[in-house]
């Protein structure tokens, strides 16, 4: 380490210099605060040991000046005239420590070692925070339409607030993206964002995942497991598809949200947890409340700030912007040269109603990049239902429209029945019936 010793007594300067040099440190000395400030202005030091009582500028004033100009410098004040007031003043001004002459050799050695470790940890912390900012930065929320601009403004506003947020919107509109943007813009951004897809887990597993369990709480619970709320300590819990949560888990959730304590399954000891909740659903929760499927008290607990993300078909002016964004992202990810859209392809993208919303558009662009040989995305590489989408006003029977729409959603979702059923907002059985009725066939190669 590089150490600066500032003391008006030559014996102290020389003794400490010799001492630290024996430990392999590089040492400079200054006989006054002014000289010390001059040296600090010329080069960087890791640690400065500064005598409090010196003629002219004293150590406390030097410390406050150094703290302003070089906040990374670790300052240790030394004095032979200890007083509680000067110690308090030193620590308040940010001194790392305050030691009294003469020093116990072991104490000084330990102090320097700890100061070095403290400095390394602080530097590492800064590095990690910077890398976290890069890693945790969510993909940009894009939209130039007035309705989307309002959403973006709202995201900025609620990010700085710590209240619960409910995000609503059809599947594929980017609810998780909005949740990530809120978390990234909040004071909790250096703590975890824990995502729980409530719709993908059975009641028992969801309960255990959310609240944790003790060893032996149920068959197979071999070890203690912290729940998502505990894992999110200091950060944000994103409860996706909150509308799918069972009545029993709704009761437990309400308790956790109200009391900010969780009790692991198999335990009687509540654990206090600090978190913010962002919930999302593609359902109309008010209707769910009216039908009795969702608790009204939980609804009001979640519905503090609401962000409604409009479906893509209601903001077609955003389609070119999003399409260009995805095109750039996928060409870069696939190490392809920059690509553009043929006018016909862009027009088809704009004309298609995108029932799967942004997710469907994203998948279509990814597929197009894979299938394109040249630098231009032609109409022919878009999914058939997109390329050949009739104008919205084109005549046709209701059954024809439904068949085309169901096929489009199935293709967009790679014929994943669960996902397609969720997009269509029907259950899986209904979807299977429609596939049979319209004689829809899964393509052999999935393309």
């Amino acid at each position, binding site marked *: 380490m590089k150490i600066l010793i500032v003391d008006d007594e030559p014996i102290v300067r020389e003794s400490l210099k010799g001492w630290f040099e024996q430990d392999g440190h590089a040492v400079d000395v200054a006989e006054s605060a002014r000289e010390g400030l001059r040296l600090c202005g010329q080069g960087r030091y890791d640690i400065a040991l500064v005598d409090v009582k010196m003629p002219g500028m004293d150590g406390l004033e030097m410390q406050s000046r150094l703290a302003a100009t070089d906040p990374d410098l670790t300052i240790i004040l030394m004095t032979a005239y200890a007083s509680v007031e000067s110690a308090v003043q030193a620590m308040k001004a940010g001194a790392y420590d305050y030691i009294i002459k*003469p020093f116990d*050799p072991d104490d000084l050695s330990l102090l320097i070692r700890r100061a070095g470790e403290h400095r390394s940890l602080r530097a590492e912390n800064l590095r990690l925070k910077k890398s976290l900012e890069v890693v945790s930065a969510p993909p940009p929320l894009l939209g130039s339409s007035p309705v989307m601009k309002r959403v973006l403004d709202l995201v900025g506003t609620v990010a700085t607030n710590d209240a619960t947020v409910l995000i609503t919107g059809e599947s594929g509109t980017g609810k998780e993206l909005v949740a990530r943007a809120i978390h990234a813009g909040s004071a909790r951004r250096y703590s975890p964002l824990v995502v729980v897809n409530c719709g993908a887990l059975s009641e028992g597993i969801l309960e255990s995942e959310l609240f944790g369990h003790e060893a032996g709480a149920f068959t197979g619970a071999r070890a203690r497991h912290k729940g998502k709320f505990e894992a999110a300590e200091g950060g944000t819990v994103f409860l996706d598809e909150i509308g799918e949560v069972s009545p029993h888990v709704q009761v437990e959730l309400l308790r956790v949200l109200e009391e900010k304590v969780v009790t692991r399954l198999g335990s009687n000891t509540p654990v206090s947890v600090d978190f913010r909740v962002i919930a999302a659903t593609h359902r109309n929760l008010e209707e769910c409340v009216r039908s009795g499927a969702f608790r009204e008290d939980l609804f009001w607990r979640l519905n503090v700030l609401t962000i409604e993300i409009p479906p893509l078909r209601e903001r077609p002016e955003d389609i070119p912007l999003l399409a260009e964004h995805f095109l750039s992202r996928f060409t870069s990810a696939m190490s392809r040269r920059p690509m553009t859209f043929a006018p016909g392809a862009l027009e088809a993208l704009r004309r298609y109603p995108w029932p799967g919303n942004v997710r469907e558009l994203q998948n279509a662009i990814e597929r197009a990049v894979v299938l394109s040989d040249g630098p231009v995305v032609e109409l022919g590489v878009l999914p058939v239902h997109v390329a050949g989408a009739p104008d919205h006003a084109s005549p046709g029977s209701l059954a024809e429209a439904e068949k085309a729409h169901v096929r489009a959603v199935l293709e967009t979702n790679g014929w994943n029945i669960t996902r397609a059923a969720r997009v269509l907002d029907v259950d899986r059985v209904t979807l299977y019936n429609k596939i049979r009725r319209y004689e829809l066939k899964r393509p052999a190669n999935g393309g």
Partner: protein
Amino acid sequence: MGASPEPGAFEALHLLPLGPLPPPRVARLAERLSRHLRLPCHLATDVRGVPLARLPERDQIDADAVLAALEREAAGKGLVVGVTPLDMAIPIFTFVFGRARQGGKAALVSLARLDPGFYGLPPDPEILMQRAVTEILHELGHVASLRHCSEAACLMRFAGSVERVDARGAAFCAACAARLPAWLAAGPPAV
């Protein structure tokens, strides 16, 4: 800082009692030291007039002042190690076990805080002897231009308490051993 002595530059180590030390104890210390050095160890008989300067308002001798006097008085007499039963310190530290200049020709070691009796424990001449030998070898390491070492087991690791004196190793680590001059690079571990 003086230049490092060439290997074999010293022909003998002269052990100089400073203060009330029983001669048999000093003779035993010289004998024990000689096991770890490729140098004969003698009681210094021709070094006189090293004043035991005291630190103002402290019941301790001033290690740096005594070391300077030792180097002055022993000039031309080879390697001299002063041993004192008195407590020793320098102005900035509450105490020191020993002092030596890197590349110098003298070292100074206080037995006061190496003695279990200092801490209210029963006297144990063997423990005191072991600690004295390792502390002298540590200071001789500085005379041989070595700095403190970060290896936990190395004799050149800094020890600011008697527990750390006991905890650090009784031998030089490989890196430090490789830099030792011939006169110090001999003998088994110090305990």
